[in-house]
């Protein structure tokens, strides 16, 4: 069985346990295993943009280095963790100053220079498993469901570093929706921001933004939204009254693969 190093992140241990549990069960059904790395620390939630920020990047470097030592790719699930770790990895590959200073802190036997490949769970589905294979393994296709994919910001931008998909017109989640037998609904706000952490202090701002997203998705005929980000899910659920239901994409994946029940029992 193919094994990947796995970085769940703080939210997946607490408020977003579902996102994690469904992903693990689905992985098993698809024939790969997520091996949680030891002693992971919180990624910090936001990428420290400052070129002089080193300490705040170290938790990501530790996770990346552990995966390197295990000769495994590092898989993430939460959009924020993916964003932070992928960008720190890019720094370790390309920014000499950050690489040197981070390694000075880490005191590793062999310096880390961005050797690990960081993959989002969706990228594993697309590039390693393949959506065609996924389609074959679906036992319970969600036929007839009209699903809007909500990407948010963190998975897509900056496109040059994340290299996840076309940041202005992505299709990975739509292809995923097709693979599990449902019908994707494309709407223009799927890559617009939900407000992110701003909802802590500026609830109205986030509300407006989530409203735009919901209205646009509903207008184009979506019956539900899926996302990979716990914060997006929280904002969309909490700031819009009577909005569309929002699910983690892993929940629908588990459902399509017929493993949702066993997760619920466990």
């Amino acid at each position, binding site marked *: 069985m193919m094994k990947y190093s796995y970085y769940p992140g703080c939210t997946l241990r607490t408020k977003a346990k579902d996102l994690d549990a469904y992903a693990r069960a689905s992985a098993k059904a698809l024939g790969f295993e997520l091996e949680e790395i030891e002693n992971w620390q919180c990624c910090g939630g936001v990428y420290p943009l400052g070129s002089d920020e080193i300490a705040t990047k170290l938790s990501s470097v530790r996770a990346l280095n552990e995966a390197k030592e295990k000769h495994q790719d590092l898989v993430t699930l939460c959009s924020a963790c993916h964003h932070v770790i992928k960008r720190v990895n890019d720094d370790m590959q390309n920014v000499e100053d950050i690489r040197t200073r981070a390694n000075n802190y880490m005191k590793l036997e062999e310096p880390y220079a961005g050797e690990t490949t960081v993959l989002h769970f969706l990228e594993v589905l697309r590039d390693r498993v393949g959506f065609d294979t996924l389609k074959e393994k679906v036992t319970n296709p969600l036929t007839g469901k009209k699903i809007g994919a909500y990407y948010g910001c963190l998975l897509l931008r900056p496109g040059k570093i994340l290299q996840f998909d*076309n940041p*202005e*017109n992505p299709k990975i989640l739509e292809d995923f929706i097709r693979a599990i037998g449902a019908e994707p609904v*494309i*709407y*223009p*706000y799927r890559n617009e921001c939900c407000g992110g952490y701003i909802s802590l202090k500026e609830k109205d701002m986030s509300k407006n933004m989530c409203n735009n997203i919901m209205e*646009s998705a509903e*207008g*184009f*005929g979506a019956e539900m939204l899926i996302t990979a980000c716990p914060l997006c899910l929280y904002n969309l659920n909490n700031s819009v009254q009577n909005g569309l239901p929002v699910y983690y994409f892993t929940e629908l994946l588990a459902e399509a693969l017929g493993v949702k029940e066993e997760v619920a029992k466990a």
Partner: protein
Amino acid sequence: MQRIGVFVCHCGSNIAATVDVKKVAEMTLLEPGVVHAEDYQYMCSEAGQEKIIAAIKEKNLTGVVVCSCSPRMHETTFRKAAEKAGLNPYMVEIANIREHCSWIHKDMEEATEKAVILARAAIAKVNLNAPLKPGESRVTKRALIIGGGIAGIQTALDIADAGYEVDIVEKEPSIGGRMSQLDKTFPTLDCSACILTPKMVEASAHEKIHIHTYSEVEKVSGFVGDFTVDIRKKARYVDMDKCTGCGVCQEKCPSKKAASEFNRGLNTRSAIYTPFAQAIPNVPVIDTENCIKFKTGKCGVCSKVCQAGAIDYTQKDEIITEKYGAIVVATGFDTIKLDNYDEYAYNQSKDVITSLELERIMNAAGPTKGHLERLSDGKAPKEMVFVQCVGSRCSDDRGKPYCSKICCMYTAKHAMLIRDKYPDVNVTVFYIDVRTPGKNFDEFYRRAVEQYGVNYIKGQVGKVIPQPNGKLLVQGSDLLDNKQILKEADMVVLATAIEPNPGVRKIATMLTASIDTNNFLTEAHAKLRPVESPTAGIFLSGVCQGPKDIPETVAQAGAAAVKAIGLLAKDKLMTNPCTAQSDELLCNGCSTCANVCPYGAITYEERQVNDHGIRETRRLAVVNSALCQGCGACTVACPSGAMDLQGFSNRQILAEVDAICQ
């Protein structure tokens, strides 16, 4: 020993402000062979040249070093001056103390020191110079034009009118180019076809002009005055001589689903087609990818309905070889692909279009017969938004760093035409800057605003958001009002950046013409030789050299023609005397040099030699100086050191190295 004169130019303050010219003159006097040194404000001026001439005569100079600007600028000037004074022009060398010294250094002491060293290197070289005499080569009195758009047509007409034979090679089935796709032209709003078609007809009827459409240049060899070019005439599967252009075949062709290139894919055409009604030649081609006969072997309708019996499914590509004295590149442009700009929703919505697509929509022969309508539902728009600089002026790697130049004007034109024909349609233009330098251009743009009420907003658009009701929400900024604007529109038109035709790189490589990072061909001098390539005999016409509108293109096309005529009018060309020469006593006839020569200029002869009293017949390399272009590849390849290059000999270059490292 040479008697050398050194002439140091101030170039006004261009050199003298950073280089102590007097000191340079003084220092060079200490060099071996130098018998005269002076400085002057402008050596290239009449008076400056007179100084050189006088010194040559008075001091019996056998060599001259001019410390001035780049030899690419004035080497010829000073060589001519020397010739006037009776000195062989190849006894003149230039020390480039402007571009390579005064302009890039700030410290006077440092710059002066470097100028002296550069002069020293030139003196060391001149000490070893020998008089050279250029040979002669013939000029084929025929020009090749690559590209049959307005640039190529104009150049062809001008050259042909001067009495020379001209061939136009056009890769599409018809000449006409981009201009044939335009509806109206700025700043006078005359119909594009009305002014272009007569020129197309004139070119096709001209007895000196030979048009090869559906053809591409395959191979180029030779050099200025004597190029040999292979042209691939792609199989049309229609006999040019028999076809009457009746059009029945296109009408009856059952395969009508191919995207029309001429209409930018907005509608379809048949598999056998002419791109547009006024096509020249009016002879269709069969697109084998869409032709049922070629795909399945069954069909043959066109052949059955053709009364002239012109259809020939067995036709093959044909290669013709022709000789030319001059080649003009007029390959033009295309709009960039918008895949990097999905925030403008071009790929997501049919109602977001490029300006060139709007030209087709506005054209009576276009996909909507000239009616302004949305391509999604055929409805007439009420609100139109134009977005400027889409992919132009982008220093990231998504777009082009340059200004495409024509967009400001054609957008004003589109806005005006729409407001004129459909007064109830509101037109908004989002712009960063409105750039209208050109005769009557700004007046034209102001008319769009003042007379036609076009709403210009300074600010870029961030995103075009398709709405469930089919409209487009345009999110842009109004920088003067400091507002973010959300504007609902029915259609959005993108002023898409233009880029040189993608095939031009391949052509430039064949012609050894230099090309810049944006794929525009480089001119020989940015200001003074704008229509010539640095490669002799190659001329540039139209947008292949840089963004241009139609009047500029036509003017430049004429200029390129004049330059080509100037070349064709000569019976003989002086050849570069800096050619390779083999020392027959050192040559051992190994053939290494001939293998690296790109011009086939080296042959072998059995010759009698007298090697220190020993007479014998040896196999020796002989350079044909008419063919040799003087690259020097053979000189380095030669294992015995027999091959050397006149004007850039081993000894001369080593002397320069020594002088610099001294």
